């Protein structure tokens, strides 16, 4: 493909007016010149570590034991074999998929509801919009601390509130029992991330043209029908944006989970990342940790790639 400004391609009719001399001479290198610094730093900080951890995944490397930092050719796939046999890893892996599926879907539903509610508010809409953004500025690690404390069985306000309302007599062990531990972490994540989804969908809703709604009004459509057959389909690109942003930030759930339960007790709330973290840092088993993190990264990337293909498809329209 020839390197030339997009606009000249789309405006074929004005092509003759294009200053060919200067434009095309510099255009071959100019975009690369703009991108190069960004690429360089990403290669250093992201690609290099990935390649390195891919290498490590074939070694029996243990932290602080440099002599283990070589591939054992007699048993190259040692970590991948162990990984396949590791029940805890697969349970954590399954937990991660359930976790992501449940939180993202709930965030989408709640965000959609919230955005439709806020779009119809007539008093103080801009104040509400600002207030709802407050959870967005919380560090995930703070959210973890905060909710770990709220769900604490003895001093937490969740049990405190339920007790005061007379709903429970004995404290519920939120962070210990199955499946409450997982649910507690999900609630924290949903609190932190639903506003992002809501804000994107609100901006989308407010940008929709009014004609279809006026036409529906004339035809006597109910509010639900207007939402179902006009708002929802037209929000499509915004839903894709929201899902893409969420898919990029998914791994930040690790901060929350690590602080709230650390995967415990007895691996009950284990997510792939909490397990890898413990293996690599506490047990110092870098090789196996790298293999697991590589498998997880590949799955994450496949998901993200899917969303981005959708996003790029919807963007080409413009």
């Amino acid at each position, binding site marked *: 493909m020839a*390197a*030339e*400004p*997009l*606009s000249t*391609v789309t*405006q074929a009719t*004005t092509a003759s007016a*294009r*200053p060919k001399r*200067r*434009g095309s001479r510099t*255009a*071959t290198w*100019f*975009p*690369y010149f*703009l991108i190069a610094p*960004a*690429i360089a*730093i990403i290669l*250093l*900080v*992201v690609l290099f570590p*990935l390649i*390195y951890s891919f290498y490590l995944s074939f070694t029996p490397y243990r932290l602080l034991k440099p002599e283990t930092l070589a591939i054992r050719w007699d048993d190259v796939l040692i970590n991948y074999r162990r990984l396949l046999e590791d029940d805890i890893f697969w349970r954590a892996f399954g937990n991660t998929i359930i976790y992501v599926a449940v939180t993202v879907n709930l965030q989408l539903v709640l965000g959609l509801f919230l955005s439709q*509610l806020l779009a*119809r508010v007539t008093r*103080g809409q801009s104040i509400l919009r*600002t207030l709802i953004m*407050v959870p967005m*500025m*919380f560090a995930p*690690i*703070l959210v973890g*601390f905060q909710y770990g*404390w709220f769900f604490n069985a003895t*001093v937490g306000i969740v049990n*405190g509130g339920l*007790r*005061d309302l007379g709903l429970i007599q004995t404290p519920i062990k939120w962070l210990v029992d199955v499946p409450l531990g997982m649910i507690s972490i999900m609630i924290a994540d949903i*609190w932190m991330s639903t506003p992002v989804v809501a804000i994107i969908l*609100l901006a989308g809703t407010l*940008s929709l043209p009014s004609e279809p709604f006026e036409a529906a009004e004339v035809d006597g459509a109910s509010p639900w029908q207007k939402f179902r057959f006009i708002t929802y389909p037209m929000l499509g690109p*915004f839903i894709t*944006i929201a899902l893409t942003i969420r898919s*990029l930030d*998914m*791994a930040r759930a690790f*901060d929350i989970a690590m602080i709230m339960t650390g995967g415990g007790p007895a691996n009950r709330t284990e997510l792939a*990342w909490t397990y890898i973290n413990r293996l690599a840092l506490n047990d110092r088993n870098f090789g196996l940790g790298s293999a697991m*993190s590589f498998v*997880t*990264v590949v799955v*994450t990337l496949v998901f993200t*790639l899917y969303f*981005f293909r959708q996003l790029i498809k*919807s*963007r080409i329209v*413009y």
Partner: protein
Amino acid sequence: MVASVNPRKRLNQALLNLLAWVIVLVTLFPAVWVVLTAIRPYSEINAVPVVWIPREITFEAYVNMFGGNPDMVTQAPIGRYALNSIIVALFSTIFAVALGTAAGYAFSRFRFRGHTTIFLGMMLARAIPGIALGLPLFVLFSRLGMLNQLSTLIIINVALNIPFTAWLMDGFFRTIPADLDESAYIDGASHWQAFWLINLPLARSGMAAAAVFAFLASWNEFQIVSIISRSPEGKTFTVGLLGFIQTFTSDWRGMAALSALMMIPALIFVVLAQRHMVRGLTFGAVKG
């Protein structure tokens, strides 16, 4: 509107407004509770049943935090962490926005070999969890003798924030008519001049949005910093928070006090720039 004349519709609207306010305030409750906890005595915080309405206000937690209490032997150098966080977040934001804007402009205006591949690759770089990168980066930077340095944290944060910035700016530049570039070229401008003199001044609000997101992400980054920074000189607020909690295992008030402190710069940024943020998130989907 006609709706406001009809009393039943007016009642419905009032109920809807009320519902929205109630839901938003309930959402905010956890944040409010943290701030309240920071300024209450222990007797109220650990009370069973819960003391919902504060009876007494005290700034003891902050006095303790800044070394005002000689009884507390171990002191976390909060001032140092705060300064580190500010330096790292500010410089990371500046560089990430500069490099990300340049990349975003290239993606939005030019067709070149590898356009889609590079764009996708960049976005995927953002999706890789910090912990997958943290361990190899630890090895890399320890070989380079660059652990515990703020410049290392800045380099890492810049790389982590470029993809999202480039994505936002790509969307933003698409909202600026390319005709402007065309007329600049006709007047004999170079590509650099078209970028620097024509597009960049128009992109200020987009860069503001990108800056807020980059600042928040750098300010809140935890995973990689916790692996790279092992000594107090190189630690930021988020990592300091962890140490603080481990030292005083059940000091919920100390945690709440530090959390409230950490939220202040983020809060200021969000309030000042919330309009830009909302628009920023939907660049490329909404025109204009």
